């Protein structure tokens, strides 16, 4: 139990562990002290001078981000003196600021805009011409609008303290100081620099990819989980017009804190892919026929009766619920092998300042989940090959969410029943008796299990095209029809069914997982190397 200190902030008594700063103590009672340079993940240089608060007995205003609390201290964050300090500091910030909110990508989520609107002066008093820096390309995905910068140095500190690759610095002094890169090197070749765009409190650092794409207030934020690797970083999908426009990290101190890698940040285009399967199709005697789900599943069940042993290809990109439902169906049809293929990178890409976070070698989000339901990994590190045993199988072949991109048209030619469940068409599915459209993880609810065996939920961010449905819904209905039991009606049902059939998932509920994730009983601890 740490030693507690009791102080008064704006008339509220608050007890916090010794060594807490005033800013953090105020945050714990819901009082936000405006600030730029302070970020919970980095050191505090106390240079933005915006978090100055009035402390009774202190000779001058104290910076809340570095002043630690003392017993019996009386702090005012909203007193006349504190407000006057902030109004003055904000006026200085606007001396050289171009006020170009209408063309600034940060507009709508900008801390300068918010603070000035809340507490700043209504009109500027400056008469001098503003100094002009213009725009600079920092390399990587980052553009720098020097005039908008408030010189908080968060970006510099991120690169030196968190990524630990000194790529940015402050050059010049005083009024002319500006953030710059070393030589022409820029940010190219760093793997976490997208985070500086997130932590820049104003629109000085913007993403080239997102430039002018959408306004902050038009985007819908949906909590999700990154599918880039087995780390399972918590993210928000920002969508508009049923398209993912960008990916932002979602704070979860147990997994990724405030950061995500650039690989995950820019790996969302596949969710926007247009040429999707939209209706269940049955092929018989060379003719394809689109049909309603009910008809397709009834025809499938009729054909599956006595069709022989099953071989299934699963995917480490499918959710726990999808994999569990596939497992139940395979068991209900008499049992059989489930294999999956997944891409692997040669090296981890660690974030040096946060040892438990790295872009992992396993480039799929749910290989752990696939292993836990009893699937085995086959094939090479680029997710090809390994399917010879399935390709010529003469019983039932079920393919879930693997696009068979390396397979020829003769894949599954001997199968007595070949079911292809995917998001888009594939040459490998030429012989499929049933082609069933499924939704992506962004189009439905579900969960992934990351490499430390943490189950994490994602929510529905977009609408699925046409008649595409989540795989757990389809497989769950088929499994219930063949093996008995209830068909799952929601992802929570499907997760509960998974807990009943796979012991590793027993004992945690959908609510336990919540927005922060929950560790399975036999969790493994992971650190970066």
């Amino acid at each position, binding site marked *: 139990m740490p030693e507690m200190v009791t102080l008064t902030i704006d008339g509220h008594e608050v007890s916090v562990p010794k060594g807490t700063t005033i800013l953090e103590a105020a945050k714990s009672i819901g009082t936000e002290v405006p600030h730029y340079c302070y970020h919970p993940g980095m050191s505090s240089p106390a240079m933005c001078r915006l978090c100055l608060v009035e402390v009774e007995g202190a000779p001058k205003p104290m910076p809340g981000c570095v002043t630690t609390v003392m017993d019996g201290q009386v702090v005012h964050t909203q007193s006349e003196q504190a407000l006057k300090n902030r109004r003055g500091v904000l006026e200085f910030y606007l001396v050289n600021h171009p006020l170009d*909110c*209408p*063309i600034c990508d940060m*507009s709508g989520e900008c801390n300068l805009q918010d603070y000035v609107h809340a507490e700043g002066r209504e009109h500027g008093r400056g008469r001098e011409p503003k100094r002009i820096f213009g*725009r600079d390309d920092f390399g990587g995905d980052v553009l720098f609008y020097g005039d908008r910068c408030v010189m908080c140095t968060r970006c510099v500190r991120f690169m030196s303290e968190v990524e630990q690759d000194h790529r940015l610095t402050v050059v010049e002094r005083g009024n002319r100081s500006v953030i710059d890169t070393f030589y022409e090197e820029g940010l190219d070749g760093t793997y976490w620099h997208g985070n500086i765009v997130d932590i820049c409190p104003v629109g000085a650092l913007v993403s080239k990819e997102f*430039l*002018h*794409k959408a*306004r902050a*207030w*038009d985007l819908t934020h949906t909590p999700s989980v990154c599918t880039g690797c087995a780390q399972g970083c918590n993210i928000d999908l920002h969508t508009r017009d049923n398209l993912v426009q960008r990916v932002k990290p979602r704070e979860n101190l147990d997994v990724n804190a405030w950061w995500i890698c650039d690989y995950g940040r820019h790996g969302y285009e596949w969710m926007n892919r247009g040429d999707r399967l939209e209706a269940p199709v049955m092929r018989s005697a060379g003719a394809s026929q689109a049909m309603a789900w009910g008809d397709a599943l009834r025809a499938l069940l009729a054909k599956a009766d006595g069709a022989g042993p099953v071989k299934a290809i699963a995917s480490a990109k499918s959710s726990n619920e999808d994999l569990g439902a596939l497992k139940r169906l395979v068991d209900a049809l008499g049992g059989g092998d489930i294999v999956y293929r997944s891409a692997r990178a040669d090296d981890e890409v660690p974030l040096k300042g946060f040892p438990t976070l790295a872009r992992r070698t396993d480039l799929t989000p749910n290989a752990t989940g696939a292993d836990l339901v009893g699937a085995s990994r086959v094939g090479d590190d680029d997710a090809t090959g390994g399917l010879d045993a399935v390709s010529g199988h003469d019983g039932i072949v079920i393919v879930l969410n693997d696009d068979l991109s390396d397979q020829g048209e003769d894949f599954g030619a001997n199968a007595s029943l070949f079911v292809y469940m995917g998001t888009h068409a594939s040459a490998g599915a030429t012989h499929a008796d049933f082609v069933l459209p499924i939704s992506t993880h962004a189009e439905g609810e579900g969960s992934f299990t990351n490499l430390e065996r943490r189950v994490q939920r994602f929510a529905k961010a977009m609408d699925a095209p046409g008649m595409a449905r989540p795989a757990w819904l389809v497989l769950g209905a088929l499994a219930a029809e063949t093996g008995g039991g209830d068909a799952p009606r929601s992802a929570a049902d499907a997760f509960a069914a998974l807990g009943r059939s796979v012991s590793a998932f027993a004992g945690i509920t959908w609510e336990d997982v919540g927005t922060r994730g929950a560790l399975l009983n036999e969790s493994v601890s992971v650190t970066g190397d």
Partner: protein
Amino acid sequence: MAISVKVMHRPEPETTSYLRAALSGMALTFKHMVNPTKVTQQYPEEMTHLSPRWRGTHVMEQHADGRPKCVACGLCPTVCPANCIRLVGGEDDQGNRYPIVYEIDEFRCIFCGMCQEVCPVEAIHVGRHFENAEYTRERFVYDLDRLMEQDHPSTLLWDPSDPSSE
């Protein structure tokens, strides 16, 4: 069930002569005929007077070099209560933010003028104009070129000499 017949009692003809109404109508016509103040306007030879605050179909202001003044800030599509403005922003070859697509569906527009009021660069304006006849419905979705071609005067949302309408 017996069928009952409802008998309508109409007023007697002697109390309801249509002649009286016809005569009073003719009297009014005659009064107007001899009245020296004419109220009929000879439109289209003679144009109607429109208030400076009349709000009609839109005009997009442009720079001297023909670029639209709009900077694709997204405020007018946000404020528009009829949700009839479609905007896709982008960057031109000089690095300026500009609207790649800017369309207003004039059929859905309710001519509230809020787009003009909100525009930070005074680009989009409602116009003092009402002659909008077209042969097809599609022509009522005005794209950026069409909006810049409009040559009618734009609206004054308030009287400059009395901005707070007192």
